[in-house]
């Protein structure tokens, strides 16, 4: 048990104060989602891992946990992509280049990149789940020779909800990326796959001993994707999932993000499936 006398003054932190950062780019990319590029002050870098998140704060509104969408290889700027679903995110849609925004973090555990080197990476992204996974995808692309195959499965509700369409096009045209996109409901313009994301899994040809799966999507999706991967005989410890919870403080104090005894903001949001399998509240 940690005791008061074990702690020195300089080891304590002002945990709840954001760093003021400048928005250097902003673009509405779908009806619901807006993309932002943010610059840290004084040439600092965020220093994140793919899969980590930041607490974004707007004064008068509050804070919300937002996944980092850019690869750490991008340098002093980083990117967020925010869906307008809450009080804060609805206000953020008014933010444009030049505005100042508060950032705390990065927080939590991202994807364990050291374990991913040399492996085939299978990305499974449902809806807005592509946002944190884009960080991983771009990291793999920026360090392409360090990884094996890059297989991306991406599902959205409708074609109009597809995110990062320019990049999807680019990934589609690369011969070192295997991209499979599906929508739940097609419209007249849609010529690709139709159906939930799990329909993309059975036909995959995976090398079981070298494939690592990285899954992010709406809560309902995880169970079914894991089930499909298991039926492909992919071992449990090669599956990573990034979970969403109400990560209010980001530093393991406020309690809102707890999954049974585990703090999602500290031990996650990226978990190995083996570690969350015993947690009843996880999936």
């Amino acid at each position, binding site marked *: 048990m940690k005791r008061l006398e074990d702690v020195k003054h300089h080891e*304590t932190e002002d945990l709840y104060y954001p760093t003021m950062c400048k928005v250097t780019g902003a673009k509405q990319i779908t009806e619901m989602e807006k993309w932002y590029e943010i610059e840290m002050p004084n040439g600092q870098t965020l220093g994140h891992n793919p899969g980590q998140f930041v607490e974004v704060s707007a*004064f*008068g509104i509050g804070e919300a946990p937002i996944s980092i969408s850019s690869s750490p290889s991008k340098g002093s700027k980083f990117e967020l992509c925010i869906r307008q679903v809450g009080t804060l995110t609805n206000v953020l849609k008014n933010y444009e280049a030049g505005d100042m925004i508060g950032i705390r973090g990065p927080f939590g555990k991202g994807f364990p990149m050291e374990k991913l080197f040399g492996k085939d990476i299978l990305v499974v992204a449902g809806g807005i789940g592509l946002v944190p996974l884009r960080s991983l995808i771009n990291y793999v692309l920026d360090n392409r020779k360090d990884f094996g195959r890059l297989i991306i499965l991406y599902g959205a509700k409708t074609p109009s909800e597809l995110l990062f369409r320019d990049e999807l096009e680019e990934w589609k045209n690369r011969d070192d990326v295997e991209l499979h996109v599906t929508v739940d409901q097609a419209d007249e313009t849609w010529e690709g796959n139709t159906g939930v994301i799990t329909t993309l899994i059975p036909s995959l040809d995976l090398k079981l001993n070298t494939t690592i799966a990285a899954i992010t999507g709406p809560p309902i999706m995880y169970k079914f994707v894991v089930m499909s991967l298991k039926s492909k005989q992919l071992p449990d410890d090669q599956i990573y999932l990034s979970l969403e919870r109400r990560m209010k403080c980001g530093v393991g104090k406020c309690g809102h993000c707890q999954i049974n005894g585990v703090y999602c903001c500290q031990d996650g949001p990226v978990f190995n499936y083996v570690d969350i399998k015993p947690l009843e509240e996880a999936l």
Partner: protein
Amino acid sequence: MECFSLLRSDVPALINHLGDFGEVIAPHGKGDVSYSFEVVKDNSEVVLDYNRTLLPLKKMFLPPVEKLMDFSLKEVTYEKVDVAITPRVFFAVHSYEMQSILRLDHSMLSGSAESNYFKRRQSSRFVGISFKPDEFHFSDSVGIAIEDMEGFDLFLNEVDGDFQLYVITDHGQTLIDGFDRKELTTPEIVDGREFKKKIRYHYNRLPRVFQYAYHSDVWADVASQCVGCGACNLTCPTCFCFDVQDEVTVTAEDGMRQRNWDSCMLSTFAEVAGGENFREKTVNRTRHRLYRKFKYITDEEGLPWCVGCGRCTAFCPAGISLPDIVNELIQEDEKAQYHRTVRV
């Protein structure tokens, strides 16, 4: 450990003396039948015989509502709130309350160590006092004796209306330096006070009971009585969950960010912006509360995260009793064990 004799009538003089070190905070009467820790202004108002305060001593280290910053919406800037380090003496504190502060130390200082908490906790001194357990106390069942002196600098042990004054730490020695002490006249050893056993198992065995209790029917029974007011968490000395909110002034030009205690028993606690609620049903929340007290942290730290103060039970409008819940789980576990044995 030094021990002196202190007459009840000399306690006001002791409180005055402690005032030389800093602010003295002690139990006071509140409302018709309740008590509260307050800063001592008139030492005749300090209550030595009390069952429990409404809010735990935690409120002095992790305030129920705490301003974190002032901000300007116009300038998009903020100013930190400086937490002053003031010497404080907490007087007439019960052993379970002290143990709850030691547990809070762990919660707030392990991992990322919070400076606000640390500053308030620094230069705090604690003077304990023995108490007569009422029908709600069960600290003894979670391994905390009435005379447990861990964490205290001084301790007042009541014997026949007067006190034995124990000097436990160097800080305690400094606190009473210059105070007119009397040699001990009463015997030093006091028999354990009458403490009715409230939880049937030794607390060491509880994590095992909880290991198998996740799907117990007991949770649904509790949920059917629970009205979801959050009183159990909000009065709990080891709960530390909070929420953060921004308040804007009427000019809409500036405001402040503040945090306030929150409760995992409230229905919105685990709800995210998109509307998904990860602990939507009362039954899941009642279970989570008890698992936080007897399983999750306990597995790692080896101690129950409940100190047996009895607040959650005494202040529950529905009369839900924490020891009763634990005993029901124990009973269920025994039945299940019996069936397991029979099957073999």
